[in-house]
Structures are given as structure tokens and as C-alpha cells.
């Protein structure tokens, strides 16, 4: 299993570090129990909390089982933070650093859940099924290799209530309703799974750049777990500085026995992609140059003049992009050599 919980930023949630730590521990134990007690349900293709239980046979059962698991996690987290709040009255530091209105909320509330608020994201698998669930933001990606090409997916449905810096949370009064999940028991398992807190997707977006980042992580993993851990610790710090400025947590599930093989495949894919992109840029540059040359000999209207200006700017950008791709090509070639040698020594 892999679990990430991200404590909310903001003064109001001044114990969200504790809240997220407790939540991860509770979730891990709850998942362990769930797997042991037979939480699975056989033969289902990938389905999600957005599907209609009445039209997907078996989903009603799965939905009930998973919702029970989530309910149990919420209930146990409530108890854990209440215990923590009781055993740990406001500290000197909290009293001086946290706005009065927030420690008043902590003191007066029937339950101190806001103070400990955090998100939750988890993936787990047994030999017969896998499931992933989430409340709040952060992105969970699965990777499958299809004919040597990486196919990324985000199988847990997104919740539009998580928007910009707003997120749903374990501390919401309707937390149970806000859990989203996916479930699959047809024995198709993802090659790798990545869970990243919102600090990452606020840096890379949730598209190709984020996928490139995780491909790079897979390349590091192929060199061995320790090296990958080291790279994550040092580079995430730097990425955060340059990107979202937010803290970042990443959890990954992978199969070490195929890591090097996958690294070679990923590099082959990236090289092919690089070639295709250069080809398309090549023809774009040619088209733009032809257009600019043609327009140069004609005196046009105001809007044609503006259009020409933009064409020129586009041309500069296209040329820059092409040069970058050429540099990238060199790097990819070097890397691929490295991983091929690694693969050969392993054999």
C-alpha cells in the first residue's frame, strides 16, 4: 500500500502536521484489517465512485464495503485527534504564534478536527484486487506499459470542489460523502503507482509535465531504491523552491524486478517522442517562414500587420523549442546508453 496525507496550510490548521501523521497510521492499519477480513469482491473491471451502483453489477457491494472502510478511518481519526488534543493542551509556542481566534476554535469546539485538518490519498493491492481512494487534492497516477509505451491515468475521479487553493478534507462535516475511489478486481494491475501531494501538481500541472517528472523518478528508481530516495529528498526541495513553494510528499509503488527494463522502454519512448516533435516543429517553422516571406512583399491592413507580428514571434519560439529538443535528444541518448549497460550487467 501507499498513503499520502497532506496537512492543510494556513494558521487555522496549526496541528495539521499531527493530524496527517495520525491519519496515515490509522489508514495503514485500517487497510491491513480490510484486506485481512476479506474486503475484496471478485471479477470487477475498473469502476469508480462516479459509476452508478444500479447499472454496474457488484458495485453496490464494493461501494458499501469501501464506504465502511472510509467511515472507519474517519471515526478512528476523530478519536485519535481528540485524544491528542486532550493530552496536549495548547503549547507556549502555539499561544504566541497562532491567532487567538484559531486557538479559541481549538478550545471551544466540541471536536478539534479543523485544527488537525488534512487530505488523504491511498492505494492498496492484494493478489486479487487493487483499490485507490482520496479525499482532497493531490494527484494519484497509475502507469501502465502498453506496447512499450507509457500510459498514465488518474483513475480516482476528481472532485471539482478541490479548486485552486480550496480542497475537501477529512475534517469536513460531510467527509464520508467526499471520499472518491476506484476499484478493480479483474487481476490487471498497474505497472507503477504515484501519489503526490498538491505541491507537485501545483508545480507541474496535472498533464504531461507531471508525467515526465514521474518518468524521471522511474529512471532514478532503476538505479536502486537508495539512490532514488536520495534524489527525491534533494531534488524535491529544489523543485519546491522553483515551483509551488509548497511542501511535497511522494509515495510510489513499483516492481524492482522490472525497473531497469521499464527505464529503457521509457527512454526509447521519450526519444521517439522527441523525433516526432522535431519533425512537426520543422514543418511548422517552414510554414511560418513561407508565410512571413509572402506577407513581406504585400502591404496589408492593420489586422494583417498584427498577425504578421505574431507570426514572427511564433517563429522565434518555434526555433527556440527546436533547439531545446536537440539538446534534450543528446541527453536522452546518453541516458539510454547508461540504462542499456545497466540492463546488460543485470543479465
Amino acid at each position, binding site marked *: 500500500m501507499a498513503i499520502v496525507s497532506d496537512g492543510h*496550510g*494556513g*494558521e487555522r490548521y496549526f496541528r495539521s502536521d499531527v493530524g496527517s501523521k495520525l491519519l496515515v497510521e490509522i489508514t495503514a492499519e485500517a487497510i491491513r484489517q480490510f484486506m485481512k477480513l476479506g474486503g475484496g469482491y471478485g471479477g470487477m473491471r475498473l469502476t469508480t465512485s462516479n459509476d452508478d451502483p444500479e447499472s454496474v453489477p457488484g458495485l453496490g457491494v464494493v461501494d458499501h464495503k469501501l464506504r465502511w472502510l472510509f467511515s472507519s478511518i474517519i471515526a478512528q481519526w476523530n478519536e485519535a485527534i481528540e485524544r491528542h488534543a486532550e493530552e496536549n493542551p495548547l503549547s507556549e509556542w502555539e499561544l504566541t504564534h497562532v491567532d487567538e481566534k484559531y486557538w479559541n476554535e481549538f478550545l471551544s469546539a466540541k471536536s478539534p478536527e479543523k485544527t488537525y485538518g488534512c487530505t488523504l490519498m491511498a492505494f492498496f493491492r492484494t493478489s486479487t484486487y487493487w483499490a485507490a481512494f482520496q479525499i482532497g487534492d493531490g*494527484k494519484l497516477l497509475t502507469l501502465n506499459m502498453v506496447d512499450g509505451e507509457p500510459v498514465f491515468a488518474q483513475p480516482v475521479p476528481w472532485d*471539482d470542489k478541490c*479548486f*485552486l*487553493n*480550496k480542497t475537501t478534507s477529512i475534517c469536513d462535516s460531510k467527509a464520508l460523502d467526499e471520499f472518491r475511489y476506484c476499484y478493480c478486481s479483474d487481476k490487471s494491475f498497474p505497472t507503477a503507482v504515484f501519489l503526490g501531494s*498538491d505541491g507537485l*501538481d*501545483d*508545480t*507541474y*500541472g*496535472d*498533464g504531461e*509535465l*507531471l508525467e*515526465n*517528472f514521474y518518468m*524521471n*523518478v522511474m*529512471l*532514478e528508481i532503476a538505479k536502486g531504491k537508495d539512490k532514488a530516495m536520495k*534524489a*527525491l529528498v534533494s*531534488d*524535491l526541495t*529544489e*523543485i519546491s523552491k*522553483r*515551483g*509551488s*513553494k*509548497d511542501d511535497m510528499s511522494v509515495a510510489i509503488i513499483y516492481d524492482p524486478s522490472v525497473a531497469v527494463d521499464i527505464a529503457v522502454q521509457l527512454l526509447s519512448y521519450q526519444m521517439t517522442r522527441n523525433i516526432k516533435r522535431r519533425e512537426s516543429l520543422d514543418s511548422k517553422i517552414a510554414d511560418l517562414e513561407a508565410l512571413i516571406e509572402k506577407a513581406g512583399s504585400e502591404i496589408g491592413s*492593420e*489586422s494583417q500587420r*498584427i498577425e504578421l*507580428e*505574431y507570426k514572427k*514571434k511564433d517563429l522565434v519560439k518555434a526555433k527556440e523549442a527546436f533547439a531545446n529538443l536537440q539538446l*534534450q535528444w543528446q*541527453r*536522452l541518448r546518453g*541516458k539510454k546508453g*547508461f540504462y542499456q549497460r545497466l540492463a546488460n550487467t543485470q543479465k
Partner: protein
Amino acid sequence: MGLLDNESIPRRQMTLFFLIDKSGSMDGSKIGSVNDAIENVLPIIGEISDENPDAEIRVAALEFSTDTRWLYDEPKEGKDFIWQKVTAEGMTSLGEACRELNKKLSRSNGFMSSPSGCYAPAIILLSDGGPTDDFESGLAVLKNNSWFKSAIKIAIAIGDDADMEVLKQFTGSLEAVIKVHNIDALKKMIRIIAVTSSQIGSKSSSATDESKQKQVEEQITEAAKDVAGAESAAAPAPSKQDNYDEWD
């Protein structure tokens, strides 16, 4: 090798929208000033964008009279934005402008990308009159838009004929509406509002609890005090004698 090479880290995006009323009553010095002011503020926004390592500011402009029209079919970087002079004629289809804005405040076929790695947009509405179409239903559509909900929204009311209630409904508060009474004030306020919204809008928000909307409102209200012929619509009305309006 490492996690950092191969790909550069993109800057977060913030889009600044201008919604410009170019109905017939804007003809003459008003629309001229708007053209002049926006054209001049674009390079400044470009600078703010270039100097900000975290965010890139893009600009989009929608003009509306009887019909609506986007100046470009995609947002452009401030420094790259070539202003096209807007000419005034026709009615004030603000409701239609709301619908049009709603379409573009979207990821599919719109101007926005993934909310991950984005800042909320800033929207500046300029108008000198009241809507002549079904504004209510247009605004109702827009108000359900998540981007619009989280956007910084400021309106500039040009002259005494501007419908303050409508502008208040659009921005959500009277504090976000600035009244201008002369050409000079109009130009200055466009510049102040565009710059302030860009600066605050493209800043990481976790540092403070106060909403960006409130911060912009406070700063421009403060700045308006130094601009003759401009004031926050929420401020008490100036006495009659002082109320010189060259558009009377």
C-alpha cells in the same frame, strides 16, 4: 542525471481579463482614453510578469457593444500583446459578455488550463452605462463558474450614468467598484487597477489569510484617494460642488 533535468519547471499562470464596454455612449474621449491606458499598461504587466519567477501573466480582452468580440482567440503574454484600438458604437450587451466570459473561463475550448499550477484570474470590467440585454441571466451563468467565483473582480464605472448596482452585482461588492469622473482619472485608475491586480493575483497566497480580492480592493481604494476625480463607489459621495463631471 536527476529529477530536475530534461524538463524546466513552468511558471504558474495568471490571466488578466479586460471586459470593455464599447457601446455608442463610449464614443470619443472615453474609448480613446481606454485604448490609450490599456496600451500603455500592457508593457508594465509584461515587466511584472518577467520579474516574477513564479508566475506568468497572460492578458485577454473582450469588447462588447451590440455583439461581443475577443481581441485574440487566446490569451497572450503582456509584453507580446499588441493592442488593437477599440471603436465605440452600438448597445451594451453585458449579459452576453458574461456568457462569453463564462465560455472562456473553462478548460475545454476556453482560455484556462488545469487549475493545478494556476492562480485565480483577475477580471477588470469597464462600463459607462447599464446593460441593454438580459444581464441577470448572463451573470447567473457566470456566477456558477468556479474560476469566476475565485477571481479578483474589479469594475470601473465611467461617469455618473454607469449602473452601480449592476457593477456591484458583477464584482460582488461595492468596494470593488471604482468611480471615475474624468479622462485623467480613468487613465490613471486603469493603470493602477491593472497593475495592482496583476501583482497581487500572481503572488503565492498562502502567506496571508486575507483574500486577494480584499487586498486589491484595499489598495486601489487607497490609491484612488490620490487621484482627482476617482473614488471607491463604497466611499461617501463627494459634495455636489466638487462633483465636476466633464461628461455631463
